[in-house]
């Protein structure tokens, strides 16, 4: 009986480490024409593209502080640029490669064990992210 109690205590303690991780959801409320992808926050990453109003699934992140990092694509600007380019040339239309720029939230968010955070991305609350690591390695 004591062994069972000990074992169950251990399992609860062990599982607790992960279950108690803070849960974070990110919502794209930037602008209707803006998509975001590669969203990350303090150790967790969402492989999804968020349209305006969309949210990520709850992610279990590490406790601590971080900004939300993401890539932003402005669809309206892309269409505008493409139309300007096609007006200026009479040749057949070329599809311009969409550019996704690195952005992050201005505010640093702190999350702790057992907490649930809903982080809303807004136009005023974001800035360019120059902290992206370089592409080399090995």
């Amino acid at each position: 009986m004591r062994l069972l109690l000990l074992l169950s205590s251990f399992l609860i303690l062990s599982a607790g480490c992960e279950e108690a991780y803070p849960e974070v959801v990110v919502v794209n409320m930037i602008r209707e024409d803006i998509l975001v992808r590669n969203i990350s926050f303090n150790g967790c990453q969402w492989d999804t593209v968020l349209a305006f109003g969309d949210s990520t699934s709850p992610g279990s992140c590490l406790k601590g502080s971080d900004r939300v990092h993401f890539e932003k694509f402005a669809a309206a600007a892309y269409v505008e640029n493409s139309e300007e380019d096609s007006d200026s040339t009479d040749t057949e239309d070329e599809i311009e490669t969409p550019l996704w720029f690195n952005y992050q939230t201005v505010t640093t968010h702190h999350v702790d064990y057992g907490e649930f955070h809903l982080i809303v991305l807004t136009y005023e609350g974001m800035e360019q992210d120059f902290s992206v690591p370089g592409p080399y390695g090995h």
Partner: protein
Amino acid sequence: MFLLLISFLLSVTPGSPENSVASSKKTSSAKSSKKMKTGVLPADEKIVVKGHRVFIRKDSTRDTTIVKGEKLRESSSASIFETLSHESGDIYVTSRGVSLHGVASGSTGGIYIRGLGGFPNSQILIVEDGVPDYQGIFGHPIPDAYIPDLIDKTLVIKGGDSVLFGTNAMGGVVIMNTRWRKSDGMDIFSDFSTGSYNTIKNSIAMLSRTGVWDASAALSVFETDGHRDGAQGSKLVGMLSSRWRLGNSMILSARSRIMHISGADPGPVTHPTPDNWYDVWRGSVSAGFSIKKSIFTMNLIPYLNLGQHKLYDGFKSIDVVSGAILESRFRFSKELCLISGTGVEIVDGHVENRISDEYTSIDSRISPALYSQLTYKPFSQTEAVTGGRIILDESEGPVFLYKAGLSQVLLDYFRLSTGISRNFRNPTLRELYLPYPVANPDLKPEYSLNWNATIRFITDIFDISSTVYRTSARNLIKYFGSWPTAEVVNIDSYTVWGVEGKVRIKNIFGFSPFIMGNFQDVGRYTKQNPDGKVDFGIDFTRKFGLNSLKITVSAQYIHGLYMDNYSRNPMDDVFYIDGSIRYRYILSGRKISIEPYLILRNLLDNQYAFVEGYTMPGFNILAGVKIGI
């Protein structure tokens, strides 16, 4: 999973391991403690096999740290290298998670000793049973490759010793020797543990001795989901060693290891890269032929180490390190001993990108060498050592390395020693030819000239030592800038002054507290080269008849850590406390031991990181049982 299941089933089968050795261990420890009373020359600095001495330490004037295999097996640290960093203030090891250090970008496990090592992680040499162990193209060891179950003890030579060990022994040498059974019989150990992040760790090992045959074998399996996305990984390491003793004068041995590790670089927490996976297969074989006739001992060790590394970006490499060492020892008298040897090493590889179908040309490297070391003991308490090595380097021509040392025992309890050595490291094939992020085929070899002076005081209760050291190096190979404008060049000179100390009090009512620290001035090259490090803790052991309880609490504090040179990008101090509790229960009348244990890491749940953005796990636990037959 099948292997896990088999090992688990074996682990729950009644039997007993480590303690059939327990009786012999008890005898040997009693002997050693008796020997310790007579003087300061530690009895555990050599291992003894029947009629034939195999020396793990060939130069007693060098400043060393010895870590017994039992300590490695019982440590609360996640890897052997991390355990070493807890055993001496001047050994610093990076980490990023609950166990796997990995390879390539984002990997950790780099060992820094007195300002050298780490990145590139090729200035500290790992030597297993006399065989240098490193990856051919990148020049670094694989920190995940070693199985504590089969390590008899580990000796860290601080300050390096390229005279005896050749290239890469710039800042230090970590020597591991295979564990053998010391009397006829067989031991089987099974160690199964599980804990946070779905971590499963399992190993099964066998030590056997039958007549003139010895065998040691182990299989180690590890799997974890990791504490965050991308920190998952697995490893499988199998090792087999056998030895044939022909009388008291000859030993033939063979050792082989195969390993597979897979995982990913999780990337910094701000920008995770969980898809940056790696997959590594490595294998090595070596043989040993040892003969002893009167004053003469000769060892011949041929070896081959090869591996295949694949990365997420299409990178694939196959590397080969092969060579042979022939070493002879003449013990002319109690006062005079001469070691002479020759060795040749060939490093080659093949690199391609499987996605772009690009191939990078690499020239193989051959390094023949001759070396010699003379030990002279003019008085029973005095020892002088000198030695030299000539390496025929392809770019530099003949390179001369040397060393000298002196040790003196005073009043039976004090030992003074000092030594200087000139060490060497060849540029790796990566630094010469591979654009990760940049290469430079004109790089020159690195040299270091390391000096230290040590005073040590040992009694049955106290082990106190202090060392002043100076590490100086020239032609160090450093990367500057960032992709695509990075460069790798030799830098002119580099000097580190430091002081290291240790106080360990042994077994006062079962308590053994310890503290060790290191403080150094590394000048401008501050990248992952901390100013100060302190390790402290306490061991408690209590025996209940044949059974025993062991509780360990240890802490590490690191100050002055930077992510870049010139004191740029400072990081927060690292501080964490680990603990472990073990109870070894011997089934009376049967040679069976059962040892449940609990390992608690980061007890204070501190947030810390050795590498910027690679936050270490919070409080986590591992519980297991070790069974010996």
